[in-house]
């Protein structure tokens, strides 16, 4: 119940912001009858109406994970965001080994196996991508190669 109501409120806020933002789109020099704004405004209205419908008639509460699982999921997101930032400056091998090792540990919490998985995936995928598919991946940071 509560989840759907909160989701409905979020959607409503999103819809209002979207419509407001649509009204700030500049009108073109030679506008067509519909213009750049109308369709986005319609979409915003649709989302808003659906948000209201969800507040009025929420579904049963979904099965949310327990707080500890939430922490683990949050940590996984942080790792993936870090991986996204690290991939270019730090090369492929190290960030991939760390990120996939952490994800593996989170799925099955056995440290040794997870570390092995991380290293194996990192090296295996690098060989596959670089030599099998010919993608231009950097193994290690450019600086290390001198």
């Amino acid at each position, binding site marked *: 119940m509560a989840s759907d109501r909160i*989701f409905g409120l979020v959607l409503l806020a999103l819809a209002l912001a979207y419509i407001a933002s649509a009204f700030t789109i500049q009108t073109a020099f030679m506008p*067509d009858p*519909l213009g750049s704004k109308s*369709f986005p405004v319609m979409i915003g209205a*649709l989302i808003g109406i659906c948000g209201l419908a969800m507040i009025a008639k929420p579904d049963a509460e979904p099965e949310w994970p327990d707080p500890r699982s939430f922490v683990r999921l949050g940590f996984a*997101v942080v790792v*993936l965001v870090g*991986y996204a930032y690290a991939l270019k400056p730090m090369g492929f091998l190290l960030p991939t080994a760390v*990120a996939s090792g952490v994800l593996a540990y989170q799925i099955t919490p056995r440290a040794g196996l997870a570390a092995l998985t991380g290293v194996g995936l990192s090296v295996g995928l690098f060989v596959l991508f670089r030599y099998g598919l010919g993608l231009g991946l950097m193994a290690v940071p450019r600086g290390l190669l001198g």
Partner: protein
Amino acid sequence: MELLTNLALGFSVALTPTTLMLSVFGCFLGTIIGALPGLGPSNGVAILIPLAFTLGLDAVSALVLLTSVYYGAMYGGRISSILLNIPGDEPAVMTTLDGYPMAKAGQAGDALVLSGVASFVGAFLATLGLMLLAPVLARVAYVFGPSEYFALYLLAFCTLGGVASKNQAKAAVAAGLGLAIAMIGIDNNTAMVRFTFGNLHLYDGVDFLVAIVGLFAIAEVFFFIESHGKESAIGVKLEKVTIPFRMIKDSGWTMLKASGIGFFAGVLPGAGASLGSFLAYMAERASSKDKESFGKGNPRGVAAPEAGNNAAAGGALVPMLTLGVPGSGTTAVLLALLMTLNITPGPTLFTDRPDVVWGLIASLLIANVVLLVMNVPMVKIFVRVLQLPPMVLMPGVTMVSFVGIYSLTGSYFDLLLMVGFGVAGYLLRKLEVPLVPIILGVLLGNAMEDSLRRAMVLSGGDWTYLFSSPIAVGLWIAGIAGFVLPFFMRGLYARSKAGLVD
């Protein structure tokens, strides 16, 4: 005669060594993807698109590779349904009903072979159907103007949302969110910038591949982390695999019927393979003299849904190729591939790029034969793949997704966006908001807006123009019916499904 000429053209494209090799490779990879629980046809094809693109494959080769993966995944989905009681993908749900009981009764091998043959019959007949129906539909689609296209897009959202979700508001909001994302970036008609909030990365809009891979593949990883990757041990033994000729002969008629039903379910825009296998199973059960045995390991209960869902997979290609409107989640992903390759599906595709259309059809026919060989005598190889633990599989999927998107766009911003879509996909799936309408919205948003604007330009801003042709009115009525009818049908569906489980 024309058909034969076209087919000859198709086979001349499909029988080149490279294309043939890609097709075999695609079938193999597809069956693995389908068999692994948590990696269905849509996310499997989605993570492979960026890779196919960076490999520099030409349009026909890329299309052949990924449709082979698509067909392969439809075949492979049954393997984990039968052996683990976990559907490898959504359409394979119905196969668990009789497939797992058969496996528990020591008939795992028979069930795998029978369902492999049923998959072949369904997919092969559907490819023939595609061959016959698509050119006809393409000719009809020539008379479509902007108002008809607008109504058609609406129909796709309505039927897809109506069938896919338990709550119409959530289906509609999914479509709305997808469309809202599609609006981001520079407006094609006026070159005005919309919804970028001054972020330069967003001027080109959100790449639909980023959205697809995030929503499907990355979100799936979060689900695995939440569940700790449980439920993945093979519960039944697979002894010797022999071909149960009698069983196949007995369910021949079942397969034919199921293929017909599945194909038409697939052709309907938006309905897709899950509906195909459901209807095929229900029809088989309803017409059987021995209703009690269904759900307890009746071979026909395995043959019907498998023929049905594979036929629907072929049927779903019809609206995708002829109208540019996908009939299912995976065909939406294939549409994304076509758009990435700068191929515009629709009636003109058949006249402008016959090599693409007929090459695709010919390689689907070849892929089916390859898949039959792989899935019957060689099924044991794929069973072994199921023993790959999720702790290796899911990080692997994540890394392939990252590298694929990164090699396509070379920007860390798209990777962040992909993680964002992954988180959103996880939350939305928890809230039972269907994801496929979002993808459809991102893919079709700009085309839909264009058709509406063109209709308004043609009519000088007169809204009644949208309902000015019988085809458009028909599509509007079908769309509204598709959205509203599930309200009433749902009770029926729920009751019959409950009846199956106990």
